[in-house]
C-alpha cells in the first residue's frame, strides 16, 4: 500500500495553500488507510473503452452570447468585501520585491 509520509502530506497541503499540524497529519494518515482501501474497489470494475463521465447529461446547454454588455459589478460592490482597500484597490503586501 502507498505510504503517506508526513513530509508528503505537508507538501500536498502547502501546494493548495494551507498548513496541517502534526495531529491533523496523523489523523489524515489513519483516514488514508481506509480511503486507499475504498479507492482499490474501483479496480474491480472493468472500464476498458469507457469514456469519462464529467457531467450527468451531454445535452448541449452552452451557447455563444451576443457581444453585448450585460452586467458587471461596479467598483464599490467589487471592493465591498475586501479586507483592506485603498484608492479603489485591494491592499496586499508588496509582491515585487
Amino acid at each position, binding site marked *: 500500500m502507498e505510504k503517506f509520509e508526513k513530509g508528503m502530506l505537508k507538501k500536498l497541503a502547502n501546494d*493548495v*495553500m494551507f498548513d496541517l499540524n502534526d495531529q491533523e497529519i496523523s489523523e489524515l494518515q489513519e483516514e488514508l488507510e481506509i480511503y486507499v482501501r*475504498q479507492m482499490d474497489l474501483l479496480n474491480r470494475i472493468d472500464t476498458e473503452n*469507457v469514456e469519462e*463521465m464529467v457531467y450527468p447529461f451531454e445535452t448541449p446547454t452552452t451557447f455563444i452570447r451576443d457581444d453585448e454588455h450585460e452586467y458587471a*459589478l461596479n467598483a464599490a460592490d467589487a471592493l465591498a468585501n475586501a479586507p483592506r482597500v485603498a484608492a479603489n484597490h485591494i491592499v496586499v503586501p508588496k509582491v515585487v520585491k
Partner: protein
Amino acid sequence: MKLNDLGKNVEANVECVLSKAHASQDKLNAVVTFVDCEKQIEEVKKLDQNLPLYGVPVAVKDNISTKGIRTTASSRILDNYVPVFDAHVIAKLKAAGAVVAVKTSMDELGMGGTNLNAYTGKVNNPYDFERISGGSSGGSAALTAAGVVALALGTDTGDSIRKPAAYCGVVGFKPTYGRISRYGVIPYASSLDHVGCFTSCVKDAAVALEVLAGRDDRDMTSSYEPVGHYAEALNSDLKGKRIAVLANVMDSIKDEAILKNFDALCEKLKARGAIVEKVKMNDELLETLLPVYLIIANAEACANHSNLDGVRFGMREEGADLEEIMINSRTKGFSSAVRKRFVLGSWSLFVENQEKLFRKAQKVRRVIVDAYADVLKDYDAVLASAASTTAPKPDESNDEKMSDTYLVAENHMVLGNLSGYPSITVPCGFAEGLPIGVNLTAKAFDEQNLLNIAKAIEEETGLEGKTVEVNA
C-alpha cells in the same frame, strides 16, 4: 407547517416565523443569521397576492448568496462575507412573493453528512436534541421539521438534502441536475451539486419546484426542458406504476424496525395497484459509490475553493507576503475536516494519480449510471430506505471518518447525484420516536411521476404536514 397554513399578511407571517426561529435556537442551533426583513416586506407588499409564495418566509441554506445578507457557508473563512448579488433561486423566491427570513447552518462548505462540522456548532435533531440533524443541509431540515418554516432551501451534492430529511422526518427534494440553476450558490462539487428544498408535504415541494425551476443562462448546466405545473398535476393514482425496490440497499440494512416499516409500505403500494418488484444491481459496482463520489467531490471542491484566500473577500489573516496571507487565512479559515478533504482532492489530481484515481472514478461513474439507467428503463421509480438507521448520536455517526461500513446502505443516494436523476425523501413512520424516511428516484426530468408516487406514499403514511413542537 404547510404553505396553505400561511395567510396573506406578510408582516404577521414573518413575525411568526422569526419568533419561532428565535425560540427554537437554544434547542436546535439551526440558524446562522436572523434576517432583518423590513425592506423585503415592503417589496412583497407591492406584488400580486396571488403569487405562489406571496408572504411566505423562507429559510435558506447559508451557501446560497443573498444580497446584503451575510452568507458564510458555515465556514470561518466566510464569516464576514456579505454578497452583493442574489443567487438565481433567491431572485426566483422574491419574484414569487417570498421573504428570506433566516440563513441556516450546514456542514462547512457542504462537506459532510452530519452537520457536526459547522462553524456555529452541531445542529440538533428536533425529535431528540442529543441526536444529529444530518447534513449538510441540517439547519434547513431541522427548522422545517420543527414547524418553524413551511419551506427551506438546501443543496445536495451526495445526499445533503435527502439524508437530513430522513433523520428529521420531512420531505427533502432534489430535482434533476440542471432543473434549478446553481448561479450564486457557493459550490462544493460542480458536477454533483443540486439545489432543492425541504417541506412538510409533497404538494409544497411541487409548488416550490415550479417556482425555482427553469433555464438560467448564468449556469451553463441549466436545462432548457420546459417547467411543468407540478402541484396542479399531482395525481397519486398508482395503478400500473412500476416501482423497483433496490435489493442491494435493503439487504444490507440490519435495523429491524426500518425493514418492517419498509415492507409494510411496499404492501400498501401494491394494494393501491402498483407493481413493486425487487431488483438487484451488481454488488461490486454499488460498493464503488462512496469512493467514486469522494474522489470526484474532493477533487472538484479543492479546485472550486481555491478562490477562498482572504485576499479579495472573506476573513484575512496577516502575513509577511501574499503567499503567507493566503496560507494563514486558509489554515485558520477552514476546519481541519475540510483541509483534510482538500488534501485528498489534491492528491487525486496529481499527474501520476489522475489516470488511476480521478479519470478512473469518472469512468466508473459512467458504468454506474448506465447500470442505474438500465434499471429505471423498466420502472417509474426506484425505492429504498433513505438511511440504514434513524438519526444517530454524534459519537455513533461515522461519516467524518470515512467508515468502510455500510458502503451501500448509507451511501446509495449518491446515485441521484452521479446520474443527476430527480430524487426525493418522504417521511414513512417512526421507530422509538425517531423519524424513518424512504427515498424515491425517477428518470431524468420525470419530476411529475416522482412527485405523484411520493404523494401516494404520503397518503399511506398519513404524515402530510407532520412537524414536532420543540418549545414545549
